[in-house]
């Protein structure tokens, strides 16, 4: 196990960032009804839900919400079988001609996002796909860039950004862990 080097974000900072991202998402789409927020299991799913709630508070409109599990689309599948808890995706609306915003907690190599985009195409043809993340920690291995970023944290490869959420871990916090 690694040791905690520092606390990057606390609960209040996380919540402010999600509020800002929610505003940015509204600002960048002319038609709110076309927006669909899709969270990547498991942490992204929780942030996506919060963003959907924020957007409803700000604009009064409830946008589409979905969950994506990318296990079956990962390129490192043959090496580690993906995440131990594979669960079903849940996208109950028609994604055709929607403006999708993918939400994940940490953007790192970009491979999860590549998998998520591939998987989205099996549900239909979205008008556009944008990406929102809470933390961008660098070290991209694919040409992928986030459209909405909570905070950029340059990290080294032996560090790990550990995002805790109240719903799973009992508290909201982002830690930098050294291995």
């Amino acid at each position, binding site marked *: 196990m690694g040791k905690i080097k520092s606390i990057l974000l606390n609960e209040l900072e996380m919540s402010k960032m999600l509020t800002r991202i929610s505003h940015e998402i509204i600002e960048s789409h002319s038609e709110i009804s076309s927006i669909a927020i899709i969270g990547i299991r498991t942490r992204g799913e929780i942030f996506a839900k919060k963003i959907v709630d924020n957007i409803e508070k700000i604009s009064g409109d409830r946008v589409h919400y979905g969950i994506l*599990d990318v296990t*079956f689309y990962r390129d490192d*599948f043959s*090496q580690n*079988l993906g995440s*131990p808890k594979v669960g079903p995706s849940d996208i109950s609306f028609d994604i055709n001609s929607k403006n999708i915003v993918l939400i994940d907690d940490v953007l790192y190599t970009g491979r999860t996002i590549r998998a998520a985009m*591939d*998987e989205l195409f*099996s549900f239909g043809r979205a008008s556009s796909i944008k990406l929102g993340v809470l933390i961008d920690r660098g070290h991209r291995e694919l040409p992928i860039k986030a459209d909405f970023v909570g905070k950029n944290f340059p990290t080294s490869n032996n560090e790990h950004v550990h995002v805790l959420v109240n719903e799973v871990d009992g508290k909201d916090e982002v830690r930098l862990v050294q291995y």
Partner: protein
Amino acid sequence: MKRIETKHLLGLENVSSKDIETIIDVGFTFREVLERPIKKVPVLNGKNIVNLFFENSTRTKISFELAEKRLSADVTNFSASSSSVEKGESLRDTIQNIHVMKMDCVVMRHPIPGSCLQLSNYVDVPIVNAGDGTHEHPTQALLDMMSIKEKFGKIKGLNIGIVGDILHSRVALSNIFGLIKLGANVKLCAPPHLLQRNIEQHGVSVTYDVDELIDWADAVNVLRIQRERMGVGLIPSIREYRKFFGITSERLNRHKKEIVIMHPGPINRGVEIDSDVADGDQAIILDQVLNGVAVRMSVLYLLLGSKDFE
């Protein structure tokens, strides 16, 4: 990291309850994939799976083939009637020839009990038993259990009845092993001569009265009466079997509790089950078929997905 312990799926007798639960749970994930506009995921991209069918099959063969294709595996089909088996080639030679051509998994149906176990001595890739004689048919039992779990939300503590020709049924045997491991109560109902002696040693109970079974059960799995058995004097007549063991709506209506009716197919309408029951609200026969594809995807994914397979 290995998600299930077992290396092959030869039967459920030697698979742990934890593995069985994992296979069923991951099966529900694949059920969701089957609801998508594009029902295909790239997990087994580049893997080659050979389907060896030494015995006729419609449902199982199509189900496995669909499962393999929806996992993006490459599929090679083999059926005994159009192969060198007709020229007298042994199972071992057939397998070894196919094996040197570098496949990643073998799915086999064979009329001889234990043939899949024997096969595992010749090749070092995962083997999935798609039915070996009167021994086991593990994926059928897994899809039955998945359907029970879908319907009731659990398996533990349920009363599951199995009625029909238990003696010749690989479906029954696999179901018995699996259901008992997952904590269900199993009661069998069959004419006495179509039931193994000492079958109770597997933890099941027995009745010869189908009404008693219906009274007791939450769900009843109705097995096909194999017509080929009739010629050899095991069943005097279809009418007699229907009278004493057939699942008819008249019989079901006599009981207060509404039970779930399952059938592994193919159905002999009017023999072991009546049309109005098979097509009625109580039956989940077509759900079973859909779950079959999902659970087979789960089995292949879990057996082939692991890196440390040796």
